[in-house]
């Protein structure tokens, strides 16, 4: 397994040498935490102090991208990337998405515009990689008692085929793994 070339998901049944998974979503949704939950080591992140909108424990944000790895049972490396949430790094998204077998969109469920964020990221990812498997993970619902899934489901329906949409705790390894399982379920 020395080759390092990555193919698009259209080749997903090919015997890849490297697996690539991408977490996408808005700033503060929990992408870095989710990446930590599915990989074997701490993500290499380009964290910078938030200059505006710092709330609670969230005092830094990822610029450029996150990166971490895990190793599958047969030794295949799994590369996990986090797309930068900020618009000024949007030009990096197609580069990071190249060769990914799936994308997990992470959305902050406590945000008033959670449904709009889902819609935005679905369109964004599908525009860049129309054939890639997508799941949506909604975080922070434990601190949002008024959270409702209805508008998010409607937003997803407006944007083509339904995708798995889970509320989950990005700090919880089992739940984050389950989100990836859903991704694999539709990628099969």
């Amino acid at each position, binding site marked *: 397994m020395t080759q390092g070339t990555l193919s698009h998901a259209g080749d997903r049944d090919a015997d890849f040498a490297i697996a690539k998974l991408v977490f996408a979503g808005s700033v503060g949704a929990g992408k870095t935490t989710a990446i930590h939950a599915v990989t074997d080591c701490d993500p290499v992140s380009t964290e910078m102090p938030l200059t505006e909108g710092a709330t609670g424990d969230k005092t830094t944000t990822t610029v450029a991208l996150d990166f971490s790895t895990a190793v599958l049972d047969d030794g295949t490396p799994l590369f996990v990337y986090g797309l930068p949430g900020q618009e000024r790094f949007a030009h990096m998204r197609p580069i990071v998405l190249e060769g990914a077998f799936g994308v997990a969109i992470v959305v902050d469920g406590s945000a008033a515009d959670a449904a709009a964020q889902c819609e935005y990221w679905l369109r964004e990812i599908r525009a860049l990689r129309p054939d890639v498997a997508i799941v949506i*993970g909604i975080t922070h619902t434990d601190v949002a008692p008024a959270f409702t899934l209805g508008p998010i489901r409607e937003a997803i329906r407006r944007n083509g085929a339904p995708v798995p949409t889970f509320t989950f705790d990005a700090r919880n390894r089992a739940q984050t793994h*389950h989100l990836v*399982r859903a991704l694999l379920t539709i990628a099969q």
Partner: protein
Amino acid sequence: MPFELRYAGLDPVMEQRFRLATRALAAHRMDARAAEWDGTRCDVVAIDPNDAYGRRVLDIARRRGTPALEIGLATPIVESGATVARLTRALHELLLGASRGEAAAVEAQRRSATANAVVRLATDPSFAGVDLEARLQDLVVWLLPQSGRVIGATMSDLLRAREKIAQADWSLVPIGGRQRAKPPGDVATSLDAFLLQGAWLARTQLPPFPQHVVALRDWPDLGSASELVEALAVVGVLQRAPATAAEIARRCNLPDADVGACLWALRAAGLLSGHVAAPVQFTAPPGRAGGLIARLAAHFGLTRP
């Protein structure tokens, strides 16, 4: 209503004693009346098994499950020369047993109508898409299909409710407009996962899921049901095409009870549309895609050894 007692094949003396015994039941606060057997339903029938007509009536009574008081030399139930007091005692015991049995039947019927909130949610059209207050003694949760959430006072309440939602006798009442301002608490979790986990715990007690083709309307929110990989497999089949419970069980290689529990829960959550006209034929046998995805599935615990 008085107990209806009938007699058949008794000699005139025993018939008279039987009538007197019927009236004597008043001492036991039982209102009863006696009449000759006429083939209609009754609470007890007294017969002489030594009489051909009595034996025929006894056969009918047994088929109907009507308690019979056998009076005769050859029977140990009540001896042929039984006194009124003896007959009264025997009738009292029979009627007491009958009323206990009837009460038990009524209670069983009541329980089957109200037990198992998951099946009720799935089958009662008046509950479809309606936000409900579910109450079990002191335990109160709100089931909110419109928002896909279940709300309780504490996490402990939600866990207790989840354990019993597919097993116990819940009262389910639509949440009124004014009531909405006073939820039982502010601890919320996924309704889909809640119902699924509850149904899973009771899967051996749930009725078989009807064998008609069902389709998935939306992906269920299973994020907090990470222990139920089987549910993901069921949903994985349905997201490709509508299917019957048997087809899903075959494709996922799961027991019928496991698939049934998932489908009852999905239907209770309002995520299944049923009665699809033409059953979908699956030609390919169940199998995992090879290569990378299969290795990833194994890594993330999607495939079990």
